[in-house]
């Protein structure tokens, strides 16, 4: 794959590499310092494996992160990178992406970084639709500060800071992003390399802010949080795969599906009619996923099928992917319009300084 062979509007202005690249070129000389078994390794491997396929000049790729375990990510990639401060990466990346259309800008963040301290910047980046891809590593716990509950931890979570159980309702990151009218909102899983790569590819191709929630296991402080969707025995019933244009159907042998409740307009999971279940919902009644729907309402309803407590059920895939003008493109357009015909900056500056009511003393 190269930028030429794929319709990648998100990377339109980023120069293509002169020669094919490999994973090693994207790997920095820094020792990776995550805990053994951390889900971050899998995501790093997927990204290092996937970036060469984008076919971009390596020097035109920038990873910006905040603070937290996942935010060490940029150190391990041999691209340009900035490990910034807690929660602010989307704001920093907004300035970078707006001033440089020739860069592929990535933000790496976690559930605490993006949704607690940096919640404001996240929703405003989504609202503005700045051309960048945000990878939100969600392990539903604070790792780097050693095990406090996070804004995505289930209610009643017993941690070091909540010995009697946490009291606040968790965010559903996909619901939040759709509420901010994010133009590309997806969810994937650290351990499913193929799905992860396909979602990252679509996110990179998107022009505008792409938010990818990655379920990521923390083996030290929240081990097993995603077992139900990872375990071969349970995942068929736990994962609701979202594929554009396909009926939303899951479960062993497609025994379950999603339909719209005509009374309330919300979505619910039903048993699908089959040889063993003649009274079930006829397959033709299942909701057909439309990721390109302009209205985010159905995408939001799909996001609500995610368990807020222990994760026994979650839709996985691209919830929404629509084309809207991006803030950075529009900002650059205004400058181009204003600067049209401007050739001599020095002369223009003299004109500016001498504007208004002037008088001359001889």
């Amino acid at each position: 794959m190269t930028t030429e062979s794929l319709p990648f509007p998100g990377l339109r202005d980023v120069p293509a590499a002169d020669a094919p690249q490999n994973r090693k070129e994207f790997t920095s000389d820094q020792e990776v310092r995550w805990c053994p078994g951390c889900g971050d390794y899998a995501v790093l491997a997927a990204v290092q494996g996937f970036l060469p396929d984008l076919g971009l000049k390596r020097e035109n790729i920038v990873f910006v992160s905040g603070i937290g375990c996942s935010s060490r990510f940029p150190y391990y990639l041999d691209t340009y990178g900035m490990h910034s401060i807690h929660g602010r990466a989307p704001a920093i990346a907004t300035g970078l992406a707006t001033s440089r259309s020739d860069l592929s800008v990535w933000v790496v963040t976690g559930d605490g970084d993006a949704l607690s301290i940096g919640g404001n910047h996240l929703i405003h980046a989504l609202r503005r639709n700045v051309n960048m891809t945000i990878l939100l590593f969600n392990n539903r716990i604070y790792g780097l500060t050693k095990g406090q509950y996070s804004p995505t931890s289930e209610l009643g979570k017993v941690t070091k800071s909540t010995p009697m159980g946490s009291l606040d309702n968790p965010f559903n990151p996909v619901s939040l992003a759709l509420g901010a009218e994010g133009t590309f909102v997806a969810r994937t899983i650290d351990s499913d390399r193929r799905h992860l790569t396909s979602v990252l590819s679509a996110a990179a191709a998107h022009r505008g802010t792409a938010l990818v929630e990655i379920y990521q296991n923390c083996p030290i402080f929240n081990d097993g949080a995603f077992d139900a969707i990872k375990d071969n025995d349970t995942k068929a019933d736990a994962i609701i795969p979202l594929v554009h244009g396909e009926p939303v159907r899951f479960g062993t042998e497609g025994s379950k599906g999603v339909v719209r409740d005509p009374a309330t307009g919300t979505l619910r999971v039903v048993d699908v009619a089959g040889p063993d279940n003649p009274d079930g919902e006829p397959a033709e009644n299942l909701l057909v996923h439309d990721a390109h729907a302009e209205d985010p309402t159905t995408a939001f309803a799909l996001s609500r099928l995610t368990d807020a407590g222990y994760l026994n059920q979650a839709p996985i895939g691209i919830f929404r992917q629509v084309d809207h003008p991006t803030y950075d493109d529009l900002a650059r357009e205004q400058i181009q319009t204003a600067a049209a015909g401007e050739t001599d900056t020095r002369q223009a500056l003299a004109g500016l300084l001498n504007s208004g009511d002037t008088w001359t003393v001889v």
Partner: protein
Amino acid sequence: MTKQVKQLDRVIIRFAGDSGDGMQLTGDRFTQETATFGNDLSTLPNFPAEIRAPAGTLPGVSSFQVHFADHDILTPGDSPDVLVAMNPAALKANLGDIKPGASVIVDSHDFTTRNLNRAGYAENPLETDALDEYAVHAFDLTDMTVEAVKEFGLSRKDAGRAKNMFALGLLSWMYGRPTEPTITFLERRFAKAPDIRDANVTAFKAGWNFGETTEAFVVQYEIKPAPMESGTYRNITGNLALAYGLVAGSTQSGLPLFLGSYPITPASDILHELSKHKRFGVTTFQAEDEIAGVGAALGAAFGGALGVTTTSGPGIALKSETIGLGVMMELPLLVVDVQRGGPSTGLPTKTEQADLLQAMFGRNGEAPIPIVAPRSPADCFDAAVEATRIAVTYRTPVMLLSDGYLANGSEPWRIPETDDLPMIDPQFATEPNHTGAKGQEEFWPYLRDEDTLARPWAVPGTPGLEHRIGGLEKGDGHGNISYDPANHDLMVRTRQAKVERIADTIPPLEVDDPSGEADVLVLGWGSTYGPIGAAVRQVRKTGLHVAQAHLRHLNPFPKDLGDVLKRYDAVMVPEMNLGQLSMLLRARYLVDVVGYNHVRGLPLRAAELADAITDLVEATTSTGDPLGDADTAEKEAAR
């Protein structure tokens, strides 16, 4: 009738009225007329934080003071010679500032029982002896305006709104101001509303004609143009000059300007102004908050832009962590703090200089940043260019400390030739700068320039120089994360040394000591330049000797500052805070400076300061020790 013409060398006029009376516009137009005429001038707008405080109340009073002269002046003046009061509240709120004998021109229209009560007057001061010591001229300006503009068919309320132009016309006649600029201005401003335009122009002319024909005024005043250095001039406020300075910093460095900002008084005008200049490649990003504003600017700086954020004190508090990140990553960043009264929300529309220590120390860890301060509205231009030079050359956040008085005050500005502006070379890194152990070419992001100690600025898109920076401590040279104790000690000292190196490029402190016999030095920074200069002149007129110097660079200080301080028996430091520069000077140079401190939200009063300087000069000359005998006795006892 033939009027007498009287020569004056200077006049201070204050226009005061309700927030909705258009006093700022009136003052601004009078100022433009005065500037065009060629007087030297200085202005002080003073308005409430509320957009429309309840009409007729004291908190709703808005005023604009203009001082103009046939010679070089430094301040908007302590005490007005003429007060124009559009209602009882404006009279009451401002009467305390004017001296006996001053002229008070009043619109009597609003002196109704209701408005008098609102302003807290039990009786109408126009009908009692309350104003006997002033030369009071009370007219129903509103009725005269309504009468003058009735042909345009406006409602009585709309017609009455042109009373500010009537007052402007009257004052323009009294002081022989040119009328053309204001008529042109009104025609342009109200081009889309012909009846409003005509009413305002007519009211303005009617005010002028009233002055000429009424027997109430027998004297017209003349203030000759001030001699000024040859050149082209315009009147300019500090915020406008600062915005132009940033554009100039961008063109002189060739770096596109990226402003990340969140609206805050009194800094917002810089955002407004820069947003008009996209043709210079200026991006203005109105962020979701102060933190995002500086964050986006820093992100743009990483990409090779001139990153700027503009705010006031409360915003600096929020930006502190990001400024610290800029210190660690050693990227150019301009942080503009238009200081206002604090702490907390404080006095949003009033001036103060109490953010100096915040600028110096308001970050976690040892996080030194250079600090530059303009001394007058027009000087904001040069200060912004200088701040750009330092930020770009030394790869560091720079704090530019303006204040509310500089921001909104104005003065004539001799427009510089663009060829005379300094060139600023960003010197982007383009090549590897290090050979690795295996002979491979590498890029080390923290390998420093020997002279400046600045690190290379390699922007994304430069092949072969891919690198990672961030808030964690960096290893010397290679820039990888380092927790090594000796490395941290070295890096902390190096960042400090880099800021101190800037002093190599700062000119020696200019000391104004005309007689060479002064024992006392008055040292200031920022917007106190005007009041200090005026006070020093007053003291010298009495035959005393006093020296004056003013700091543009607060960090680092000019190299010779310590020597200068030690040359004088006493050093006075006037500030609009409780002694922040004093604290820095005492700590750094062990000099027992004498503070002169007021935090009233207004510029220092030159006359009061002159008294304090006189006292210090007399005490120093008589004893050689400004602290007096007690201190001498203590010193002796200590021996």
